[in-house]
């Protein structure tokens, strides 16, 4: 068997995400490619959490509704998810907590027997699962040692006892001859991409699903050479980032919709003052607080049009960890090349899912911005042909650097003169030409599946994973723009021109990409929208697409 899907479920506080990650690592170590999906409500203990680990010989970036194995740490898990089981599937369950068919093991009994803590039930479950999968004990041992931080020996004993309690292996997962890849979440990929592009300061206020960028960078400050700051609010975050950029530091902020709303005033300041800043917006279901730990692609229109007045902005929308890595690097370099705010638009599904990560770190480098040559009197807003004024920073012994939220002359002094106003507005907007050229050097629209097909699944962001597999199964084509502002019209036209039927697929209720495109004459024939706060799965989407094309 070259592919397997495992669901692990229990209560919040049972360590479900961690158990799922350990299982992912196990399968990763024996050469599988992983996609890891985590589903949890907004609470700290109790409720119902589950993770789905899908492992395959080939690269995958989506999960399925159906699974081969359910690991049930509680009754809820068995009941809620039983119907997902494939024909050959089985449930591995805590026999004290659950009464069902399958392999029942009294995990708590094992833990108690070895004087473990209640949370170590998940260690027992991992041990048992490893045996069910026929993974050799030394592999399990190694992974446990690498991933567990406290009481390694105790955990190992628990895992081993559970391993032994399972008689025979039900699914023999063969070891593959592939190099293991790092397992990286979307948020981690964003963090790492920014670091590669020269990130100096990450400034953020916690907000699901963006918080992990802050946590990750804070935990690795010294490994990665980055300073992290957690200020009093998102407004402070945004202004600190602008202040830092003014002083010459590559700064980035991250948040979700509600926090971003609070940054829109500062965003407009970045537009007027020409501040290079990277914004990470990790979407979650709104409006407002909405459903904070689930997913939605609901903020595209808002982000694209945010900020009062007219100014240049870039919005990039990665759909997997590698794209998150590359596009964040690109966002940073574009911000500093054009002195504009740039965005990476993620969502819970991308940010918190975990991927086998094959990106090449060397493909991102911090590109040096245009620096003032020291000649004459420095003018921050020098009106140049391409609109880009060379940079100098406070502390430069030859330059006086004046930046401002007001309309201004080249030196940065306030102006109310009509000609000056029009000229400066033109200077700033003129950068768009260079920006478009620069973007054109990058892949802006991706195509997957059957390139010859006249039926196109048009998607963006985290929805791509499910789309690609569905398209592969049905022989369709997938078109995924990576750049959502400025829209890459020509590549899109090329990708879509010979389509007979374009099916827009989005995780929102109104089809926001479709609306964006409609302004440029792209007609979408059908929409498949999901807005119950859950992402598309491969099999779920397959049914819907079949309905449309049948």
């Amino acid at each position, binding site marked *: 068997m070259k592919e397997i899907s495992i669901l692990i479920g229990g209560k919040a506080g049972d360590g479900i995400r961690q158990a799922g990650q350990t299982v992912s690592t196990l399968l*990763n170590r024996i050469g599988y490619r992983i996609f890891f999906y985590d589903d949890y409500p907004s609470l700290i203990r109790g409720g119902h959490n589950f993770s789905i680990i899908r492992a395959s010989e080939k690269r995958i970036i989506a999960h399925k509704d159906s699974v081969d194995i359910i690991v049930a740490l509680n009754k809820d898990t068995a009941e809620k998810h039983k119907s997902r089981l494939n024909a050959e599937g089985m449930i591995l369950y805590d026999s004290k907590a659950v009464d069902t068919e399958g392999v029942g093991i009294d995990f708590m009994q094992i833990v108690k027997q070895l004087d473990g803590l209640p949370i170590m039930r998940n260690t027992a479950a991992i041990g048992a699962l490893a045996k069910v999968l026929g993974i050799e004990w030394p592999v399990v041992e190694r992974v446990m040692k690498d991933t567990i931080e406290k009481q390694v020996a105790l955990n190992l004993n628990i895992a081993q006892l559970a391993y032994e309690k399972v008689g025979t292996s039900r699914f023999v997962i063969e070891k593959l001859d592939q190099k293991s890849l790092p397992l990286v979440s979307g948020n981690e990929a964003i963090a790492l991409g920014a670091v590669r592009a020269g990130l100096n300061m990450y400034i953020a206020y916690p907000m699901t699903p963006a918080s992990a960028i802050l946590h990750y960078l804070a935990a690795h400050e010294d490994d990665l050479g980055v300073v992290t700051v957690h200020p009093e609010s998102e407004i402070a975050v945004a202004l600190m980032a602008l202040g830092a950029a003014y*002083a010459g530091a590559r700064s980035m902020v991250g948040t979700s919709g509600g926090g971003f709303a609070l940054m829109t005033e500062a965003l407009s300041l970045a537009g007027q003052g020409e501040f290079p800043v990277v914004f990470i917006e990790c979407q979650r279901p709104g409006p407002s607080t909405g459903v904070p730990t689930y997913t939605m692609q609901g903020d595209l229109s808002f982000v694209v049009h945010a900020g009062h007045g007219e100014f240049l902005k870039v919005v990039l929308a990665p759909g997997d960890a590698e794209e998150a890595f590359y596009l964040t690097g690109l966002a940073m370099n574009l911000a500093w090349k054009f002195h504009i705010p740039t965005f990476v638009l993620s969502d819970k599904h991308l940010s918190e899912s975990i991927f086998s990560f094959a990106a090449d770190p060397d493909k991102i480098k*911090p590109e040096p911005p245009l620096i003032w040559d020291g000649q004459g009197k420095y003018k921050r807003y020098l009106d140049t042909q391409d609109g880009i004024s060379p940079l100098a920073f406070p502390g430069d012994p030859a330059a006086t650097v004046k930046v401002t939220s007001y309309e201004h002359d080249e030196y940065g002094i306030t102006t109310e003169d009509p000609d000056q106003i029009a000229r400066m507005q033109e200077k700033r907007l003129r950068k768009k030409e260079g920006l478009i050229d620069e973007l054109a050097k990058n892949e802006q629209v991706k195509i997957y599946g059957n390139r010859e097909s006249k039926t196109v699944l048009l998607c963006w962001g985290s929805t791509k994973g499910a789309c690609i597999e569905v398209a592969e199964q049905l022989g369709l084509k997938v078109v995924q723009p990576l750049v959502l502002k400025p829209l890459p019209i020509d590549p899109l036209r090329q990708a879509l021109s010979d389509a007979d039927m374009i099916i827009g697929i989005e995780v929102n209720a109104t089809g926001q990409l479709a609306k964006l495109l409609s302004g440029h004459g792209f007609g979408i024939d059908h929409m498949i929208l999901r807005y119950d706060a859950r992402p598309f799965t491969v099999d779920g989407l397959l049914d819907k697409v079949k309905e449309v094309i049948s």
Partner: protein
Amino acid sequence: MTTPKKIETYAVNTWCPGCGNFSILTSIRKVLANLSNEGFDLHRVAMVSGIGCHAKIVDYVDVNTFYSIHGRVPPAMTGIKLANPDLTVIGHSGDGDAYGEGVEHLIFSAKRNIDLTYIIHNNRVYGLTTGQFTPTSPTGFKGRSTPMGSPEEPLNPIELMIASGATFVARGFSGKIKQLQDLIRAAIDHKGFSFIDVLQPCYTFYDTYNFYRERVYEFTGQEHDASDRTAALAKAGEWAYREGERIPIGIFYQVERATYEETLLRGRIPVKLSPKDIRPVLEKHI
């Protein structure tokens, strides 16, 4: 020699004749000129302002400046200072700016004791938006949004700043320019968050010049132990931005404690950091 004149820009000054802002401008220029003459490179100064009459000051001083937005001077300053702690960062805000729209940032700057100098042009009115009441206007103040009189009691920013953890808390008066210069200089020299509330008459919308002239009195470290928090709070209570006969001006409170940038940065200077190789970190993800 750097004269205050040399720190001027070509911008046309648009404050009303008689405005208290002129004295603040004169003072800051003088202090900067002195610093320069003592060998300090003024290119290491970064000034930040909010929006309002006060904020125009950055157009009139020829140093690095960030003319920011209403209420957000402290986080802009914080970003600059954290990115490059070698810079001397000075902020100017109005009372609407600092005590209204953005008072949360003021409190956090004090709490963190970040090494900034923050000068409030407190005319107790919104000047640039033509005369509404502000957080320090007296109760009953008749402004354009409160023709029947302000329904609120004023804040006492001196008390608020001491309560929030500022390590340098002073009040000046634009009519006492010599002392004002001394206060600004002391604030810049102080390592930590330095706050000066400057009583600044708004000639057009709230002319308090005579009110202050008759009431302010300067005090010094000889009469008041600025390191004594209880004494500082008591002194702050002498005048609560209402009526009153005597208004103390001087340094209410000054102590030393670790600064935010010291603790947070641990010696690192973000603008000089270069990114590290991510491979060792990625290894741990396998």
